[in-house]
C-alpha cells in the first residue's frame, strides 16, 4: 500500500498501533520517502506521506483502511518484492515456552520489536484471537503468537528457546501442491485397502508419484527418512520373530500367566495393557507392539481369551506413552519447553491410569468380554 503526498497534512499522527487497534491491520514493513526499508516496527512508528508499506489483514479491513485514509492499494508487491518472497520471510506460529523470558511481561516492556525483530500479528489465548492491543498484553506460557519475519530471524529465535515453533522454521509451504499430494495419498490408501497388493508396493507407488509431481524433491524425501526408526525396526522385527520362533514368547507368556494365575479375561487384558504401557515407555511404541503381539497372542490363547482382543489392547496401549519423554511427540517439545522427566511423570501418571481404564471399559462395552 502507498500513502499519498499529503497524507500527514492536517491529520493527527497515525501510528501502527492505532491502525492495528482501529482496523485490525498489522503493518510489517515500511519504506519512507527516502526509500529506506524498515522491518521491525514498534507500535509508535508513525505512517507518513509517500510511504510504502506491507500490511496483513482481512480484505475488508484493508479496504476500509485504504478508503478512509486515502491510501492506495497496489496490485502487487514491487518495492518489497524480494524481502517478502516466501523463501525469505513469512508468518509462523510460535508458542510461548514455559520458561520463556517473556512470561509476565508485555511486548512493549520487553522491547520485543527491538530485541526479536519480528512483527506479531495476532495472539491466540484460551480459544480467543486478539488482533489489537497486543503490545500491552502480558504474555503467558502457552500463548500462541502469529509472527511475521524473515526465516533467518526465526532461526535465531528458535535457538533462544523463548518460543516453540509448531512448524519447522525453514519449511517453505507449497499449498498449490496439496491437491496433488492428496491424490497420491488417496491412491496409495486405495491400493492398500482395496487391492491385495503388497503394502510396500502401494506406499512406494504413492511416494514415487509425489516425487514425480514435484510435491517434494528426492533429496527432501531422503532427508525425511529417520534412520533411528529404521534401525529400531531392523532390530526389533527380527527380535520379535526370534522370540516367536524360538518359543521364548510362549515361555514368557506362560511364566506371566503362572504368576498371575487363572484370571478373567478383563483382568488379563488389564495386565496386558500395563505390560504394553511399561514396554512402550522404554522401547518405542512400534518396537513394543512388534515385541508384545506374539507374546500376548500366546497368553490369550493359553487363558482362553480372544487373542484378537489382546492384540488390540497391545496396539492401543503402546500409545499410552505419557510418563516419560520417549515418544517422539514428547521429545519434540521437551527440548524447547525445557521440561524434565519429573514434569512428565507428574502429569503422565494420572493420564496413564485413566487411559487404561477407558481402554478396558470401552473394549468391554463394544466387544462384550466375558468378565
Amino acid at each position: 500500500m502507498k500513502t499519498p503526498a499529503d497524507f500527514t497534512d492536517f491529520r493527527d499522527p497515525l501510528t501502527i498501533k492505532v491502525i492495528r487497534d482501529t482496523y485490525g491491520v498489522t503493518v510489517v514493513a515500511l519504506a519512507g520517502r527516502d526509500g529506506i526499508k524498515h522491518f521491525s516496527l514498534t507500535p509508535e512508528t508513525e505512517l507518513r506521506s509517500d510511504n510504502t508499506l506491507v500490511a496483513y489483514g482481512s480484505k475488508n479491513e484493508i479496504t476500509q483502511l485504504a478508503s478512509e485514509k486515502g491510501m492506495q492499494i497496489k496490485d502487487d508487491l514491487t518495492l518489497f518484492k524480494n524481502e517478502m518472497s516466501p523463501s525469505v520471510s513469512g508468518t509462523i506460529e510460535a508458542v510461548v515456552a514455559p520458561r520463556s523470558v517473556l512470561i509476565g511481561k508485555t511486548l512493549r516492556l520487553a522491547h520485543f520489536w527491538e530485541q526479536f525483530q519480528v512483527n506479531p500479528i495476532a495472539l491466540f489465548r484460551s480459544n480467543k484471537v486478539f488482533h489489537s492491543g497486543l503490545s500491552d498484553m502480558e504474555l503467558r506460557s502457552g500463548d500462541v503468537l502469529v509472527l511475521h519475519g524473515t526465516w533467518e530471524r526465526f532461526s535465531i529465535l528458535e535457538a533462544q528457546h523463548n518460543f516453540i515453533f509448531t512448524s519447522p522454521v525453514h519449511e517453505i509451504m507449497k499449498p498449490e501442491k496439496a491437491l496433488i499430494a492428496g491424490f497420491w495419498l488417496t491412491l496409495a490408501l486405495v491400493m492398500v485397502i482395496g487391492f491385495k497388493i503388497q503394502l510396500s508396493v502401494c506406499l512406494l507407488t504413492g511416494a514415487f508419484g509425489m516425487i514425480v509431481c514435484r510435491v517434494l524433491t528426492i533429496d527432501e524425501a531422503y532427508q525425511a527418512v529417520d534412520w533411528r526408526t529404521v534401525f529400531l525396526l531392523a532390530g526389533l522385527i527380527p527380535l520379535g520373530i526370534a522370540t516367536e520362533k524360538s518359543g521364548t514368547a510362549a515361555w514368557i507368556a506362560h511364566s506371566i500367566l503362572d504368576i498371575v494365575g487363572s484370571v478373567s479375561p478383563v483382568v488379563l487384558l488389564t495386565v496386558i495393557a500395563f505390560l504394553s504401557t511399561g514396554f512402550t515407555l522404554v522401547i518405542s511404541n512400534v518396537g513394543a507392539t512388534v515385541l508384545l503381539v506374539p507374546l500376548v497372542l500366546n497368553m490369550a490363547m493359553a487363558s482362553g481369551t480372544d487373542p484378537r482382543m489382546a492384540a488390540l489392547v497391545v496396539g492401543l496401549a503402546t500409545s499410552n506413552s505419557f510418563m516419560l519423554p520417549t515418544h517422539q511427540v514428547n521429545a519434540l517439545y521437551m527440548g524447547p519447553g525445557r521440561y524434565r522427566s519429573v514434569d512428565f511423570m507428574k502429569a503422565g501418571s494420572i493420564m496413564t491410569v485413566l487411559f487404561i481404564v477407558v481402554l478396558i471399559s470401552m473394549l468391554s462395552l463394544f466387544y462384550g468380554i466375558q468378565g
Partner: protein
Amino acid sequence: MKDTLKILLIDDEKMVGDRLKPALAKVGYSVETLMDSRKALQRIDENEFDVIVTDIMMEEVDGIQILEAAMKKSHRTRVIVITGYANVNLAREAMDKGAFDIIEKPFRPGDLRNVITNAAKALDIQGEIGYQLPPN
C-alpha cells in the same frame, strides 16, 4: 456556565476543512468551515466569532482582507493565519495588522489546537466568560 469556543475556519482547499473540522470538534470546539472567502466576509459581519482561522491565498478575497475585516468587526476576535507560502514579510504584515498567530501549512491538528488554546486563554485573561478548554 462555560461556553464552547466558536471558531470559523476559512480555506479554499477542501482537505483542510475536511480534516481539521473533526479534529477540532472532538475536543469540544464549535467549528464552522467555509471555502468561499466572500461568504466568509459576510459571515464575519453577521456573527462574532471567538477565533477565526484563515488561509491567505484565496481568490476574490484574501486572508489579509479577512483579517482586516475581523479586526474592524471586533477586537476580541483572535485571528490565526495559516498559509502555505509563509515568509518573513507576510508574517510581519499579518502580525502588524493584528493577527494573533501565524502557522505555516501543512501542520498537524495538534499544532492548531495548541494555538487555539492560547487564544482561548488570551480571551479569558481579558475578563471574558471562562471558556471550556479541551482536556489536554
